[in-house]
């Protein structure tokens, strides 16, 4: 990548960040925040960190952006005008000074670190034993599989935590309808969602399939799947499921459960999370595919929020989103 492109990209990132901070209209701020996330993803691409770029665009820009938009919609529905409150100039100046000082300190610390990556050298000789090419997948699902296992439980726990916020009397029920209220907009969103869901499915399946050898993998693919589900739900193309649907529960638990069982099976081969000789790739793939489903379903439901509609619910019908 050329220097000119890098400079323009950096300026655009700073500009998008600045506008997102200073613009008064919340929707505009969100739009620039999403643009900022996408530009940041490009910067990661420029640094050859493809996996980080995918995660930044999918999670940092995509899912967070959807969350912000939904939060704004709910605030508007509650009668809040969703514009920024005025803060005093002194507070702003103080925050600016504190942040700048901290950034300088951090930059000094980072620059004082000698620029060599020793971990890459440690990873490279171990990769052939796994039968996969993507080092990030190797780290996530072999060398540091224990971290990833616990992390998958954190994600599931987050959904349980969100569910625990449901007001009394609506459990087991379903989350609030994500659909937009405005009729013409709803029509656009619906046809867009219908179009996007299959595309997202194909893309997600590709990402998880390719993840063992080229950048991709369960987390990115799960996010894309969740994105597709959310857009479809916003358009009303699919409904949100009841939280006690057995199929849904299975889909949510599948990834962590398969991961844990494979880990436990490893105890027969010498210890927890030890993959048997020669079948490391099979084990990793099994974990990846099941995690992909669970992450997709969990993220989509996390964005949808806690149950607010009790189950004696006249709507019925659109229970298609059982688990994909």
């Amino acid at each position, binding site marked *: 990548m050329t220097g000119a492109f890098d400079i323009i990209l950096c300026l655009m990132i700073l500009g998008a960040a600045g506008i997102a901070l200073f613009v008064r209209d919340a929707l505009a701020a969100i739009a620039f925040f999403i643009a900022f996330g996408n530009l940041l993803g490009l910067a990661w691409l420029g640094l050859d960190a493809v996996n980080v770029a995918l995660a930044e665009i999918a999670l940092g820009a995509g899912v967070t952006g959807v969350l912000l938009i939904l939060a704004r919609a709910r605030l508007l529905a509650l009668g809040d005008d969703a514009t920024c409150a005025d803060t005093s100039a002194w507070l702003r100046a103080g925050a600016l000074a504190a942040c700048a000082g901290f950034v300088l300190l*951090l930059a000094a610390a980072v620059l004082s670190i000698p620029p060599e990556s020793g971990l890459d050298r440690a990873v490279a000789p171990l990769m052939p034993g796994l039968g996969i090419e993507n080092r990030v997948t190797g780290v996530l699902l072999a*060398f540091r599989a224990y971290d990833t*296992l*616990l*992390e998958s439980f954190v994600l*599931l726990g987050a959904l*349980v935590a969100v569910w*625990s916020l449901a007001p009394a*009397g609506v459990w087991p029920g379903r989350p609030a309808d994500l659909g937009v209220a405005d009729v013409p907009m709803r029509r656009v969103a619906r046809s867009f969602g219908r179009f996007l869901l299959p595309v997202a499915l194909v893309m997600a399946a590709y990402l998880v399939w390719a993840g063992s050898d080229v950048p991709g993998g369960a987390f990115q693919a799960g996010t894309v799947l969740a994105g597709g589900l959310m857009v479809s739900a916003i358009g009303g193309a699919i409904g949100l499921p009841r939280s006690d649907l057995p199929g849904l*529960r299975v889909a949510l638990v599948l990834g962590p459960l398969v991961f844990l069982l494979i880990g436990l099976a490893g105890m027969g081969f010498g210890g927890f999370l030890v993959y048997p000789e020669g079948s490391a790739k099979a084990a990793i793939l099994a974990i990846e595919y099941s995690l992909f489903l669970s992450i997709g379903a969990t993220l989509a439901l996390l964005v949808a929020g806690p149950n607010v509609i009790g189950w004696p619910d006249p709507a019925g019908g659109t229970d298609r989103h059982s688990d994909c």
Partner: protein
Amino acid sequence: MAVPLGFMLAALLAGRAARWLILPAAPAMAGLALWLALVPADAAYLVGHWDLPLGILLRPDGVARLMVAATALVIGAVGLHALADPPEKAGNAAQAETFWPLIYLLWAGANAGFLTTDLFNLYVTLEMVSLAAVALAAMGSLEAALRYFMIALVGSLAYLLGVALLVGRYNTVDVTLLSQVAQPDLATMLALGLMTAGLLIKAALFPMHGWLPPAHAAAPAPASALLSAIAVKLGFVILLRLWFEAFPAVSGQTALHVLGGPGALAVIYGSVQAMRQQRLKALVAYSTVAQVGYLFLAFPLVAGAPDPSGAWAGMMLHAVAHMLAKAAMFLAAGLMLKAAAGDRIGDLGGLAQSMPMTVTAFGLAAVSLMGLPPSGGFTGKFLLLNAAIAQGAFLYAGVMILGGLLAAVYFFRALSACFAAGPAPRAPATLGVRTAAPLVLAGLAIVMGFGGSALHNLSAIAAPWAAPGAAAP
């Protein structure tokens, strides 16, 4: 080791009758904790057999053995209590169903955190515990939980930033390796500072305790018991790993007073605040602020002692005794408040006659928290006091004695209210598991005092001061 928990978490989500799973879970976990306490002293396991700069080392040292065992006792007892006395707000089925997966998440996170020597792995476990803690706190007061959540997020991010700096600097985040290569340069100091600040928020050390009293006081009794007993302890254990295992060379004796000083202030401030509270649970919550202070006050005492084994054991015994006693106290307080006319201390009148067992549990827990003999709290505080006097740290010694006196004042205020004549309680006292659970926990906190030397030896297993850097397998 942490596996059965994860298994139960998964099983829970699938099953609707999740609450009954505590019946097999409690004895299974107690058994595993016992097994862990008995494994050979040099036991360690590299997860998946991946070697160290990359892999994760699990190692049951004295700290881990004590904390895992205490966690199993506390969560087991709290779980059985919650089985008999549902924790949710009346009629809230969502809370009734999600309470159980959350406590298993807390359990798994705490155990995994106590066992690992890997700083990034510790971050993940910290997230597990914080997430479960926030959700449990939200069952009482959404506002307090939201505040807790925001503060905990800042703490997590600070910690994560520190971990990232260390990866860049040393290419490893394993405590045992870091202790061999750590140097006091800018990146290391900044990382240590960031991580310490983040963890102090999580451990609620004064002056970063602001989130704790509202969150703990408002949550349902079993949730408060878990929050006070376990959630704040993980931050404390990670700080132990950082300051005594990874960076003893970097952190000087003076730097340790940065922890000890606020610790001493926390003892005083928490005690004074507890004396001023009108509500029973707020009193117990502020007592946690004070008791956490003792843990950090112990840091300079351990580092300064010529033979740190006494102060180290004192610190660990105090931590365990606080876990047991505080869990017992919150459970007892929950039962007392359900029976009493209101949630103020003045409303407790007459309870000593109507629910003697529960008031006894509260009293026994108070005995341990005040540090009266023969309790576990006494042994812990006595060892710390001994170390302080031996080092001439009379300021710390004075704070400890004063803290004990203040604790006596505020706990006796609550207890004497129970013995005062009062209106007949709203609910008749019931016997069974819900009464037995706090009594057993409080009894254990007392009995710990008699097992002092065995626990002393247990805490010394693979302790960092015994053989620096010798823990690698």
